[in-house]
């Protein structure tokens, strides 16, 4: 059994976004012959449509590779793909917990970026061995020696033996595999101990029920085993177990200590399997579960409503299925006067929110309306009670509030030295507190700021990119709560408060935000038979106002010549459009209007 484990390497690839992680994964698959060249499709591990289009990896994914190394041995390499974006650190740490090592891919032209560091620290926290890989050496601007030095200086790990590769052109791939075999330790589990397998992912298959992706640390699991999921205590009988090929699951006679693969056990209920939970056997089970993952709390919240109220149940089921392998997603039912029945959902960040929203729309054909994202505020009341608010509607009356606290993050921004002024200005606008500035080399700077989370969830990253010609990179972590003067801003349409548009904002920002939202709504709400005032208010005080003028002209001038079908279709289309609008009091509000307030800088 130990001989078996000797030849296993469990590793993942970590990198800053766009440094070539997924391309390297493709090359590794190709090189080890898991896929024939004919089957090779770019970015094979990114098999969600959304991932391909956005060019990012959202979900961790695993695949088994067979590599005949130069030492004459045959190795089983389990590659777990990870996302690079800050919002998905949680996914990264899930993958890391299942591995003994990580290939750290760094772009030879760009060098270390914010997420390179963030992911490196995560990997080191998990005790992983790192294999630095310098990618994109085919670029004219590549400076591999410089990047090697940067890795040694900034991260502090030796990089002189780093493979210099071009994943795009397939250069240096064998060297990466050799380094992984050499540097990443073999798993050291005990196959004779009670079963301990870490669930690092799962998904729902309509025929087989919940499929668990796991890493077996100790013991073994095979078809017929009676297993217990330690967090929920639920018991199941294994129907199938095996490893993961890029084309799907390949059943085998079971999984041994050190191996990575899947288990299917006719698990019908999505809620029974928690990612991060430990699988053991019913008989002679493990006494203690594996450490699991650090519980990640959602930081960004918004309301999600079905555009068609009749699809509320579909939305609930879809959220349940997505949550199955995305523990960082939370949702609870809520109701809005303007939008009806929906859910208050929690996310790790704005990208996470957008991804979930798009997945709901694409994979479950749901038409959604989302409300402005917000964060969790702490309310300290005059009577000494404290409350946490993730929905502005639940904010107690100002007379009950002693003070409020908002979440603050520590943000690391890496940027070309000549853009530091722009970044400082941006952080200043966003109520940032300067903490530190370090020169990475003569032309690149690392800045540390403390920023209120609610200042970065809207469009901070976009603003950062546009002020640095796209060169800045950014990562953040929550550092705690801080007292702030915050107010609830309400939006009134035709003198009625629209609950779905209320949000909490810093006093200094209230006027500007109120004004911008009124402008956006004015542009998004079509003229109607009467004039519609749009107002922003704090309590009873109106701080901004726009007006949608009454409609003056909505008529088909010409209707003769016998062909009335086209005119009839125009009217039917208009009528259909009206049906899709939300009735807020007497005002018909298009779904898009609710969304338009989300992107105020456009």
């Amino acid at each position, binding site marked *: 059994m130990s001989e078996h484990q000797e030849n296993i390497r469990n590793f993942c690839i970590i990198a800053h976004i766009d440094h070539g992680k997924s391309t390297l994964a493709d090359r590794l698959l190709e090189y080890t012959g898991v896929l024939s060249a004919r089957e090779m499709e770019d970015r094979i591990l990114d098999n969600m449509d959304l991932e391909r289009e956005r060019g990012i990896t959202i979900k961790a994914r695993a695949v088994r590779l067979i590599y005949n190394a130069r030492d004459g041995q045959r190795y089983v390499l389990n590659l777990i793909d990870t996302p690079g974006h800050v919002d998905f650190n949680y996914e990264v740490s899930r993958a890391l917990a299942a591995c003994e090592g990580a290939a750290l891919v760094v772009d030879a032209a760009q060098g270390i970026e914010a997420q390179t560091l963030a992911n490196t620290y995560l990997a080191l926290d998990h005790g992983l061995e790192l294999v630095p890989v310098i990618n994109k050496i085919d670029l004219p601007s590549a400076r591999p020696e410089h990047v090697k030095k940067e890795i040694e200086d900034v991260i502090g790990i030796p990089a002189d033996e780093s493979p210099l590769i071009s994943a795009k052109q397939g250069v240096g791939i064998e060297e990466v595999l050799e380094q992984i075999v050499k540097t990443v330790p073999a798993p050291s589990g005990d196959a004779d101990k009670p079963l301990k397998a870490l669930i690092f992912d799962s998904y729902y298959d309509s025929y087989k029920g919940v499929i668990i992706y796991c890493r077996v640390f100790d013991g073994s699991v095979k078809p017929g085993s009676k297993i217990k999921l330690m967090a929920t205590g639920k018991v199941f009988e294994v129907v199938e177990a095996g490893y993961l090929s890029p084309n799907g699951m390949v059943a085998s006679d079971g999984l041994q200590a050190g191996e990575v693969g899947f288990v299917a056990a006719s698990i019908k209920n999505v809620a029974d399997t928690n990612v991060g939970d430990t699988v053991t056997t019913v008989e002679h089970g493990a006494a203690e579960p594996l450490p699991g993952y650090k519980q990640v709390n959602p930081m960004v919240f918004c309301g999600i409503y079905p555009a068609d109220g009749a699809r509320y149940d579909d939305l609930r089921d879809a959220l349940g299925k997505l949550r199955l392998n995305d523990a960082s997603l939370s949702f609870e039912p809520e109701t809005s006067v303007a939008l009806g029945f929906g859910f208050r959902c929690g996310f790790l960040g704005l990208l996470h929110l957008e991804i979930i929203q798009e997945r709901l729309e694409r994979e479950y054909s749901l038409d959604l309306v989302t409300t402005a994202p917000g964060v969790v505020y702490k309310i300290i009341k005059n009577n000494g009670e404290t409350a946490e608010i993730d929905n502005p509607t639940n904010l107690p009356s100002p007379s009950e509030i002693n003070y409020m606290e908002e979440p603050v993050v520590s943000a690391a921004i890496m940027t070309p030295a000549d853009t530091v002024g722009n970044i400082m200005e941006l952080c200043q606008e966003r109520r940032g507190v300067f903490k530190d500035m370090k020169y990475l080399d003569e032309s690149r700077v690392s800045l540390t700021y403390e920023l209120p989370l609610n200042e970065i969830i809207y469009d901070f990253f976009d603003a950062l990119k546009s002020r640095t010609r796209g060169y800045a990179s950014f990562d953040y972590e929550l550092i705690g709560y801080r007292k702030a003067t915050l107010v609830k801003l309400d939006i009134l349409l035709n003198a009625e408060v629209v609950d779905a548009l209320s949000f909490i904002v810093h006093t200094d920002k209230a006027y500007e935000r109120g004004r911008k939202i009124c402008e956006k709504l004015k542009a998004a709400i079509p*003229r*109607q*038979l009467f004039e519609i005032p749009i107002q922003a208010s704090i309590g009873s005080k109106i701080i901004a106002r726009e007006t949608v003028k009454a*409609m*003056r*002209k*909505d*008529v*088909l*001038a*010409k*209707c*003769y*010549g*016998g*062909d*009335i*079908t086209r*005119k*009839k279709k*125009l*009217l*039917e289309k*208009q*009528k259909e459009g*009206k049906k899709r609008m939300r009735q807020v009091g*007497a005002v018909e509000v298009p779904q898009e209007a609710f969304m338009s307030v989300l992107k105020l800088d456009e």
Partner: protein
Amino acid sequence: MSNGIYIHIPFCVKKCAYCDFNSYDNLDGLKQPYTEALLREVAARLPAAYDTIFIGGGTPTALPAASLLRIVSAVAREGCEFTVEVNPATLDRGGFAALKDAGVNRISFGLQSALEDELAVLGRIHTFADFLRSYRDARDAGFGNISIDLMFSLPGQTLDKWKRTLHSAAALSPEHLSCYSLTIEEGTPFHAMRLDLPSEEEDRQMYRYAAEYLQRLGYRHYEISNFARDGYQCAHNLKYWERTPYYGFGAGAHSLTGGTRYANSREVRQYISANAVTETVLSATDIENEYIFLGLRKTDGIRLAEYRALFGAEFTEKHAAALRNYQGLYAVDDGRFRLTLDGICVSNTILCGLMT
């Protein structure tokens, strides 16, 4: 009222930049075969009884005079209102006389604007002077029923410019005037251009000015865009709005008979070689919706008793909920339901609320 006859001529000398009608300025070679195909269709489908005829386009007078006269003769009948659309400068004095002799008794001129700069923007081939000459020729030939088409809300147009066009046309005392607000149709050159168009407010100023001015001169505003002296409402066009049966001939022509709509092949070559008729049987809902949205184009609206007889319900009761939102935009009088001028200006919104 009896049936109506519509004949479509899909040719013009030069296609205008705003026009999305089924008409072409590059199919001259098809004029002869088209005439033959059209005459065959007329021979095959002309109903026994009818009392209005309308030859439209395109530009009917873009056909060679002999061809147009063969078509006119094929359908002309005693006692009909017989209209031919004419673009200024496409027919000479002799041409008008020939039409008159063949049985045509109403001319509809596409003038659009009296101002040269606006005519140029629209892509019209005539000048205002051309129009005046044609108008005189038509009168000289004995036409006692003439309509003039005008357009407002044109690129760069102001209320003052619109007044000049309107005044110039009205000064001729035509029996009938149509004033159309320019609609930018998809697929036209105008749609692709960045035009300096009047605002909704200016558009409605022009519209209201025309309505008020023409009524002062004794014209009755009888449909959204149409004005006539007493006895000169276009009986043919009223059939479209009152759902009286009509038979359309030619490429893309539509017919309504016995609760079914028919459409000829729109493509001219297709029509000539093998016309394929598309048939749409109307449901009860379709018929009621059509009745409402066509009937309310007329300023005197729909007859409540007729609605009750046709659809078995009281109009105002059935639509009571919707009507509450439209106070001041409609009126119920003389047993009729009609939209007021304010209501007509936003009639699409109201119709959406009244159609099922």
